[in-house]
């Protein structure tokens, strides 16, 4: 009985994602569903762990939407996967990195994801993110830690030609970040 409650009671700070239509700017802002996140810290990682590539350049993301790994620094990765796969994935990574000094910490509940898509999505992000998000500066498959207004975020541009972004922030900043993005979509100014 209690087990059942645990499985159903994960209360996401932005609620469960609803199917929403893009706003007038054509930007769709959608809080992500419950996911697992791991942070991996290791100095000499080798090629991969649990089939996740660890030798890709810094500030890139590999994998697909189901399971992805973003390299945020020389020894730091952020990993996302489906909730039910978290324990198995963590165990496999730990096994593959056995003997190497590393830290693998579950931060599934610390992080909140918000997905953003639409032709003008980068313009909305630029309301609070000072980085150059143009095709050359932040191409598909890019990932970085940066700012959105007054909140720290991780920004990931999903692989693929159409602009799709994942914004990851800490749980208590989610209301601010979500509100900021909605105001930013208005500020894009479709219909001026």
């Amino acid at each position: 009985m209690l087990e059942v409650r645990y499985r159903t009671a994960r209360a996401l700070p932005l609620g469960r994602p609803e199917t929403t239509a893009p706003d007038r700017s054509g930007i769709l802002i959608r809080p992500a569903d419950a996911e697992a996140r791991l942070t991996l810290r290791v100095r000499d990682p080798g090629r991969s762990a649990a089939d996740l590539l660890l030798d890709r350049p810094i500030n890139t993301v590999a994998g697909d939407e189901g399971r992805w790994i973003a390299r945020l620094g020389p020894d730091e990765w952020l990993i996302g996967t489906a909730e039910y796969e978290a324990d198995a994935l963590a165990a496999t990574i730990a096994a593959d990195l056995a003997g190497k000094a590393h830290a693998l910490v579950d931060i599934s509940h610390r992080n909140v994801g918000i997905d953003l898509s639409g032709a003008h999505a980068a313009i909305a992000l630029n309301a609070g993110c000072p980085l150059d998000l143009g095709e050359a500066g932040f191409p598909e498959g890019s990932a970085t830690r940066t700012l959105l207004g007054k909140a720290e975020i991780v920004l990931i541009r999903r692989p693929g030609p159409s602009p799709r972004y994942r914004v990851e922030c800490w749980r208590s900043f989610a209301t601010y970040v979500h509100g900021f993005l909605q105001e930013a979509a208005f500020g894009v100014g479709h219909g001026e």
Partner: protein
Amino acid sequence: MAQQFRLSRGGRIDRSRPIAFAFNGRTVQGFQGDTVASALLANGIHLAGRSFKYHRPRGILSHGPDEPSALLSVDRGPGRIDPNNRASVVEAYEGLKTRSQNHWPSLAFDVGAVNDLLSPVFVAGFYYKTFMWPRTFWDRVYEPVIRAAAGLGKAPEEPDPDRYANRHAHCDVLVVGAGPAGLAAALAAAKTGKRVILADEGAEPGGSLLHDLTSEIDGRPAAEWLRATLAELDGRENVILLPRTTAFGYCNHNHVALTERVTDHLPTGASQAPRERLWQVRAGEVVLAGGSHERPLVFADNDRPGILLAESVRVFVNRYGVLPGRRIVFATSGASAYTAALDAKAAGAEVTLVDLRLEPDCGSGPARLRAAGIPVLTGHTVVGSKGRKRVTGLLVAPIGSDGRCGGRRLLPCDCVGMSGGWTPAVHLFSQSRGKLVYDAERDAFVPGSSAQAERSAGAAKGTYDLAACLNEGDAAGAEAAGSLERRAFTATSTPTGFQPVRIMPTDANPAKVRAFVDFQNDVTAKDIKLAVREGFQSIEHVKRYTTTGMATDQGKTSNMNALGIVAGQLDKTLPGVGTTTFRPPYTPVTFGTLVGPARHALFDPIRTTPIHDWAESHGALFENVALWRRAWYFPKPGEDLHAAVARECKAVREGVGIFDASTLGKIEIVGPDAAEFMNRVYINPWAKLEPGRCRYGLMLKEDGYILDDGVVARVSPECFHVTTTTGGAARVLAHMEDYLQTEWPDLQVFLTSTTEQWAVIALQGPKARAVIEPLVDGIDLSPEAFPHMAMRSGTICGVPTRLFRVSFTGELGFEINVPSDNALAVWETVMEAGRPYGITPYGTETMHVLRAEKGYIIVGQETDGTVTPDDVGLASMIAKAKKDFVGKRSLARPDVVAAGRKQLVGLVTDDPKLVLDEGAQVVADPDQPIPMRMLGHVTSSYWSANCNRSIALALVANGRELVGRTLHVTTPDGFAAARVAEPVFFDPKGERINA
């Protein structure tokens, strides 16, 4: 008759779209494309405001952002009343409401105009000289009265209902100004395929091309070239063209701030868009092509309505199809006014031109004008004007070979176009920290050496010929884009050149002449001379003393004339006097643009815990702790803070209380060297702490003073679960990372913030174990198996938990760490399970009282950045065997080991009902002479329901030696006697905690 001064054809206005707006309640007709200024002039309205100091009638001087006089309050609806808008840049639209400012009871009859009669009194520095004594009058009399009488316009009182956007943008080439030079630059840069942003503050890009009916570019009329060029730029993917966008700040690293006015030109509610947008552009290269300002001529009564800048007359005629007067006299010392005179004549005005220069210095201008039937008086000065609310005539006089004025002559007129030459707009260049150099030939400061990746082109650089502007722009744009390609434009040659003149020669007594230099601040030539005579020699001092060049127009029209007068008085060269710096913004920017979306909920992130909504719905009041909102106390109906906290405190000691401690900072420290790292950052020893056990840790800054504290659990040999204070979480992580990355890169250890991974439910009180016993799986809760200061992993309500047996209350206590998204469910289940035991939610206030009863310190309350472990009685925590830890060496500093330091003690007031003030000073003898010797201060003070009396903690010099002595503590009325005690007020033996 409406629009009696509108020409029957011509102009860029849309005659198919008539509009009407209000000016001082009167309906004014115009057309789409009009500014408020052009529509007023079309209706023969010149009187547009009263001047700042003397309340003199003022008209419209200019057609652009340099307008100093015609400042209007614009009303776009409730909350949208905005003062000090220049009539020349406010676009007119149907239903707009405008009012003139600075007069009472009306614009036509203004009582304040009495100041004009008293003008001999209101000299430069009048306020500084007059309102010096008595000192007590400063705050109560002088300032309120002066503030009420002075000031431009009225500040809005309602909150701004508009929304404002912020946008960061990157480009390879930013071009500021879309006149001929800027357009050519943008064309050249755009051709390379690089990213180009072209910003222009006008409603329509084009600059001087918008009112040039006679020039040709590459064989085509200027207007046609403009149309084709804009079409080409608009069609390019790599170009962003921003009209109504002012570049107002040039910061480091080519970071340029632009403000885009998105909706002000549209009727309210016509657009779902932000009112304005701040663009923060990071440009690889910048081209500054912001053009130049025309200078007024300084002569007696040069400020009458109807007296405009010469080029502005040309703009109103050609661009707006408005004749500012039927009889227009142009007064000039340069060539450009001749073009304006010809255009005015062509539009049907009766025109005369007066040139200060002698005939041989005037080139072909006079001949061309005379051929067109315009009388030209060369070698003539202007000595005054006639009229009051509108100019009726200009007084001119010939200048003889001896420099003396000949006989005066009145030229009747209803409009004057004056031109004293041109000043390049170099403010952005100056803000970029580039060095200005004085160019004597152009009588102007022009851009010299650059400090950033930018270049100027066209009139902004002192280049006034059309073809030269285009070619300079092209070269600048190509160079900025890294292209070697250049093109050569051909264009109609532009009459250029002027004779610099600071004050027009006059036959009148200069001490009596009111010749205005700065129209906006009512500064006359004699005011500036007076300032120099009184010893103000630096232009920066003259500016502040006379206020010339201040306020909304920032001296766009006046700076060079003022500077020239100062130089003349001091007999120095212009560069010898120098120029004032151009602080941003050069043109007014709304607060809305600067604030952007950072209002209300988006002003700052408000961090809340997973339990927040529950607490709110159960009546909690909240307090701010860093960015967090924490439940402060949970009053029941009728309870105040005092009653609620007393009840909550009792409940914890007698039954069980539940507290949301989720905001505690948490750091997961992992790696083979984790224990060694802990040893170095904390004063405590960590090597021998067994997995599953906890320790209260204290860390210092390098100076030996307490930085932070918190309970740490060893999860495994290579993993520590560290907690920090709520406000210190980020600071502590940064402190640790700093040492790890810069001092100890050899340590194999990694830090991860888990503050928000784990929510923390603190359950405190004798019944705590009984409440959670049925909910916990996989952990033996018996005191033997799970003693105080231990940590176990298991599940609670089926949720994985790191269960800490710790206490910040002195009672049996648990801190239930669960993943954040599950915390609310666990909290509610625990509440349910605790109901039979009278479980009571409590807030931070009760938490503070309970810990003070036990003498537990709070970092930031008992400590203030100058407190050592020994000061608060925690010296025994220092691991003596450790070779080093951060702050260790500082603990041996002479002042740290010296006797007489302040030490933490308890204070027990003689009157048990008296709660001392936190921060109150402690003295030995209240009757000693002032200044008294302060022994220390109260750090924490509360009413303790459990002790049934007040309690206080204090830092007192040599406090531990004074236990038992009576000291005296300041109160709002005097002093209160208090006995020094050990800083523990409840359960001094600490037996309850091990229950």
